[in-house]
């Protein structure tokens, strides 16, 4: 038996370590470790609930805004605080823009180099690349001279001998299967996506003033619509720009992102048979339609629910407030629980007391049978859950959403793969691409609803009736849900004497990257890596492929809260 250590795992958000034990080159056991802790929930205790969004949002700057959204919704849920329809629509547009932006950047800038050999692109024939691109889609940057320029730029860079971000990549690894021309196309789109994402981020700047970390507000959206020309960002010109940005986003998804995903997937169909994980999937749901008149669950574009053991015939309901459903274990985490290490806790009753028992840095290895992570292990009714794009696409598919079913079936047909191919590393990558289209297309609907509301004379974006603390009950508690690009996210808040008495976030990457629980059940990353054959332990490309397919976000995943103000931080160093 030998152990492969990958630390730092790069091209992710945050600090992740993977240790994988191999027998005869095949992974038999893996451990996923979050190695950084900031203690943001503890920072929230005692503050004004209206400030929480700004603090909580800084949990992550990649999936920027998701914690802001979950936070304002948690406060609004606690205070039974209704918000105007326009605010709901603006939030939908901002969340969906985040999805489209984040997923495209993940594909090209974080994940692509696991599949694309940048150095191989140097031997591409620009004319052949142009022919291939013209077969793939009508995207206009497809001439031989364009690809010749991109190739020249790349060869000038690599010829300089200073490889920068490409230094020490696993170039030439036999697991890279793409022809040089497709590698060149992917590199061209790496650069184009950098340019495109800058423009997409303007949508957040219009409604929220900036990106990363746009502004939100409890009770609505902090932007005045349709006022004096030039006086605000969201005047008529600003609203028109929102429409243009949505059009540009959707075009890039349709003509670049989807065709590239399909073209690359054709060469990696063996990855449709590995990397599944735990087989259970959960969503909290997202994109309420404020004009539908339905009940809370009926208003959601992406439904809420759980799928167990790949069984798409049943969607189990999820209740964020039910103390027997969502619970966190710390059996293999560097924390203490006062009621015993193996007793799970619901977020309302949660507690976290750092108790580092790992080796003194610098260290070479962690012990998988002991505590080995700053992440906890969240469970739904005791079961590990995968959250994220695959969970959402499955939930839409299982709930009978026709557009999703058509899109999934057509994609599988084109790749000549069965439905079971979704339960894999490649399936996860494909699901992310497909949901980007589903959500991007839906943006046009919310945009039209917003314009329609404005035309009918409703420009309200903020309800200030409950904004000031003297209108609140002295104590309240609530849960705020959202779907972040990386999966189901919720914040739980307890308010006492108009201050935050308790705050807890259970985050997508904690669901996916968390360690084993008291029963020894692995988290999704750990389960997904089992059975991978590693061609070269010095170049563990296969590990990166599967881990990156989840799009890790570790700053989110590691958190700290304290229920009673009496946390005892004692670090014992073994």
């Amino acid at each position, binding site marked *: 038996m030998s152990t492969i250590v990958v630390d730092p795992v790069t091209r992710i958000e945050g600090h992740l370590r993977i240790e994988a034990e191999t027998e005869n080159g095949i992974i038999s056991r893996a451990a996923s470790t979050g190695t950084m802790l900031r203690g943001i929930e503890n920072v929230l205790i005692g503050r004004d609930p209206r400030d929480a969004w700004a603090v909580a949002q800084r949990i992550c700057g990649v999936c920027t805004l998701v914690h802001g959204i979950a936070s304002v919704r948690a406060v609004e849920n606690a205070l039974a605080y209704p918000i105007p329809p326009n605010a709901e629509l603006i939030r939908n547009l901002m969340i969906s823009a985040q999805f489209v932006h984040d997923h495209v950047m993940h594909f090209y800038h974080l994940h692509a180099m696991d599949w694309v050999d940048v150095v191989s692109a140097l031997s591409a024939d620009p004319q052949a690349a142009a022919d291939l691109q013209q077969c793939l889609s009508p995207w206009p940057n497809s001439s031989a001279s364009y690809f010749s320029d991109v190739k020249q730029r790349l060869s000038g860079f690599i010829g300089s001998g200073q490889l920068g971000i490409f230094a020490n990549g696993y170039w030439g690894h036999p697991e890279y299967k793409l022809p040089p021309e497709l590698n060149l196309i992917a590199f061209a789109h790496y650069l184009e996506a950098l340019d495109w994402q800058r423009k997409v*981020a303007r949508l957040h700047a219009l409604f929220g003033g900036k990106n990363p970390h746009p502004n939100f507000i409890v009770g609505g959206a902090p932007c005045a619509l349709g006022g004096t020309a030039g006086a605000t960002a969201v005047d008529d010109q600003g609203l028109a720009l929102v429409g243009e940005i949505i059009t540009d986003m959707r075009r890039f998804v349709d003509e670049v992102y989807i065709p590239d995903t399909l073209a690359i997937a054709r060469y990696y169909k063996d990855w449709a048979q590995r990397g599944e994980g735990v087989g259970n999937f959960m969503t909290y749901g997202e994109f309420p339609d404020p004009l539908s008149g339905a009940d809370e669950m009926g208003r959601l574009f992406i439904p809420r629910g759980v799928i167990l053991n790949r069984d798409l015939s049943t969607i189990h309901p999820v209740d964020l407030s039910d103390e027997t459903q969502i619970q966190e274990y710390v059996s293999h985490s560097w924390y203490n629980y006062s009621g015993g290490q193996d007793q799970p806790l619901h977020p309302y009753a949660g507690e976290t007391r750092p108790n580092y028992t790992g080796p003194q840095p610098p260290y070479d290895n962690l012990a998988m049978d002991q505590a080995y992570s700053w992440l906890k292990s969240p469970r739904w009714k005791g079961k590990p859950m995968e959250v994220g794009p695959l969970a959402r696409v499955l939930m839409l598919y299982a709930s009978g959403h026709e557009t999703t079913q058509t899109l999934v079936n057509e994609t599988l047909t084109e790749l000549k793969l069965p439905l079971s191919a979704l339960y894999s590393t490649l399936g996860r990558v494909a699901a992310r691409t497909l949901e980007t289209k589903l959500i991007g297309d839906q943006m046009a609907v919310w945009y039209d609803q917003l314009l329609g509301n404005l035309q009918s004379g409703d420009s309200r974006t903020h309800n200030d009736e409950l904004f000031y603390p003297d209108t609140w009950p002295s104590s309240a508690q609530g849960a705020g849900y959202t779907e972040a690009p990386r999966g189901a996210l919720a914040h739980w808040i307890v308010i006492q004497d108009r201050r935050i008495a308790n705050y807890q976030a259970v985050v997508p990457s904690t669901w996916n990257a968390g360690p084993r629980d008291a029963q020894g059940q692995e988290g999704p990353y750990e389960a997904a890596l089992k059975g991978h054959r590693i061609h070269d332990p010095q170049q563990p490309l296969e590990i990166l492929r599967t881990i990156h397919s989840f799009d890790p976000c570790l700053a989110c995943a590691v958190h700290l809260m304290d229920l009673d103000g009496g946390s005892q931080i004692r670090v014992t160093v073994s």
Partner: protein
Amino acid sequence: MSHDETFTEFLTRRGVSRRSFLAFCTATAAALALPAAAARELAANLAVARRPSVIWLSFQECTGCTESLTRSGEPTVEALILDHLSLDYHHTLQAASGEAAEQARRDAMAANWGSYVLVVDGSIPTADGGVWSTIAGVTNLEMLRETIEGAALVIAVGTCAAFGGIPAAAAVTAPNINQSGARSVGELMDAGEIVTRTLINVPGCPPVPDVISGTIAYFLAYGTAPELDDQRRPIPYYGTTVHEQCPRIWHYRNGEFAFAFDDERAQQGYCLYLLGCKGPETRNACPRVRWNLNTSFPMHSGHGCLGCSEAAFWDRALAVDGSGFTGSCFYPDVRP
């Protein structure tokens, strides 16, 4: 660039048109409030054969600062990483992981000892032997200590690296108000925990994209830091308050204030001071440089400035004795 190669030939070999390169130099010179002739000087100075090595260390951070850099319009992140500098270590963008990534850092240090630029985002935890954050089994403090030795210049990007930021924000119920002992680069330098090097603080949560890239561009052109204030911030970007640059200042002077986030006064762009804007006490360039390709900035969209580039912006309402909060850090408790 060889001696018998013209500058234009050099750029062409790099796949950069002279026109776009000069446009970048002009925009950067303007952003830094340099004289008109400086654009040419920038262009000449940037045409060096060997791109300066940059090592970027991420500690207790959220990656918002890196994301912000990728939103820069002039210079763009792709121009920086492909044409102007050699980004030899950067967790979010580099291809290599694990030992190969750490080897890339050591290689870059050895090859560029004494001349590389070290960029840091995130604070550095010092409590409990540094176990709050490790990379490759090594504490952040140890990695910083090792890497700063051979650096010519250090840029602390974001409020966490510049001032401690959110990890250092008050945790009033924790045994230690700064739970992880989070420190800024400057604090560690002043305390003698790490060696002293020229340090530029670029605070903001995150900083404005073009402020990050402009600071780097200035160094590329002149090999030094721009003029800094007493908090080591570049004066061209942090020399005046947000309030003084805000186009709504005329409404402020006329006593015209918004009373709600969506009332008629807000729609007319009235001043947001009564809704909690911290522009008067915040030094940054948001209204002048503007965010996301000159699209907007907080007040322009309708929320006041949070003051995110200031050292204590998370703790404005903290009681003097540190026991708790006297109100909201961002919103006045009284209706306008």
